[in-house]
């Protein structure tokens, strides 16, 4: 039976990737449908920009297609590998963004109509978070994003980042402290003193 038409959706990602590496393009379609939403979600939560997140998703999936023929079975999970690639691509973009944009450049709410003001504050808060993430050291930004945006446990983050549990704990703690310090001067503007 062709693996890609197999109704059993539990066919492991790795089996599909190996099948694609052997020329089964239907396996690539199943993998794309299964993994792209996850990659896009991770990229969007980290970058806050749909167009950039889509570009990262395409690039991460392209790297997956390229490594398929050389994939070493049993060494890593496909999802772990993709989390790592996506996190690296996102921090590359955050770093470029931080060079070209100061934190104070983030737009502030200007329209005070009900509803619009809430939406603008929502957007402003997210923009502030992404700008603050962009100013963190790369590894801290990755650890914080995987822990607090993706909701992953420390053991999985340790695998993704290829570091120890202690290093994960240290990176997330330092990252959160740094974010708090960066955002401290904007609490009133972001509406946190009323919360």
């Amino acid at each position, binding site marked *: 039976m062709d693996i890609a038409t197999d109704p059993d959706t539990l066919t492991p990602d790795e089996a599909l990737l190996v099948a694609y590496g052997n020329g089964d393009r239907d396996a690539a379609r199943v993998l794309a449908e299964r993994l792209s939403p996850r990659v896009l*979600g991770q990229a969007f939560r980290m970058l806050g920009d749909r167009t950039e997140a889509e570009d990262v998703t395409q690039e991460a999936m392209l790297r997956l297609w390229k490594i398929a023929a050389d994939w070493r079975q049993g060494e890593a999970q496909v999802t772990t590998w993709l989390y790592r690639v996506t996190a690296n691509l996102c921090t590359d973009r955050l770093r470029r963004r931080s060079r070209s944009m100061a934190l104070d450049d983030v737009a502030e709410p200007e329209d005070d109509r009900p509803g619009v003001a809430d939406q603008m504050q929502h957007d402003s808060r997210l923009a502030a978070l992404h700008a603050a993430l962009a100013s963190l050291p790369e590894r801290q930004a990755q650890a914080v994003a995987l822990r607090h945006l993706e909701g992953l446990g420390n053991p999985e983050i340790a695998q993704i980042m290829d570091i120890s549990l202690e290093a994960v704990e240290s990176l997330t703690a330092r990252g959160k402290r740094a974010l708090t310090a960066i955002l401290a001067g904007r609490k009133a503007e972001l509406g946190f003193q009323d919360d």
Partner: protein
Amino acid sequence: MTDLDRKDQDQDDAGLETLFALARAPVDPPSRELMARILADAAAVDSGRTQMAPQAARGGLFSGLMAALGGWPALGGLAAATVAGLWIGIAPPSGLTGLTDAVWGTSTTISVFSVDDVLGSEGQG
């Protein structure tokens, strides 16, 4: 840490958690256009692999020799060096003759036997 410090810390943590919660909101699934781009990449990478595989299998003795020498660029250099060596052998530049004389000395032909002696023509006539 004083109670005031702890209150500030709690507020900061709550503010950061609020931001994280906002960012964790569900994301719309990939568009058809994005999926098409991703699958086009998959097809292109697969095509590239299948085109490269026969080339690797087609190698014969000549291509193996070429590869060992370093391919066409290396073969071109080898051919140029061969022609240059041949030309120097046939028509050495004057400067080179002076140099070889200095290194090896001037060659002199010494005849131990008279040609006539060898051919037995001495005394005839």
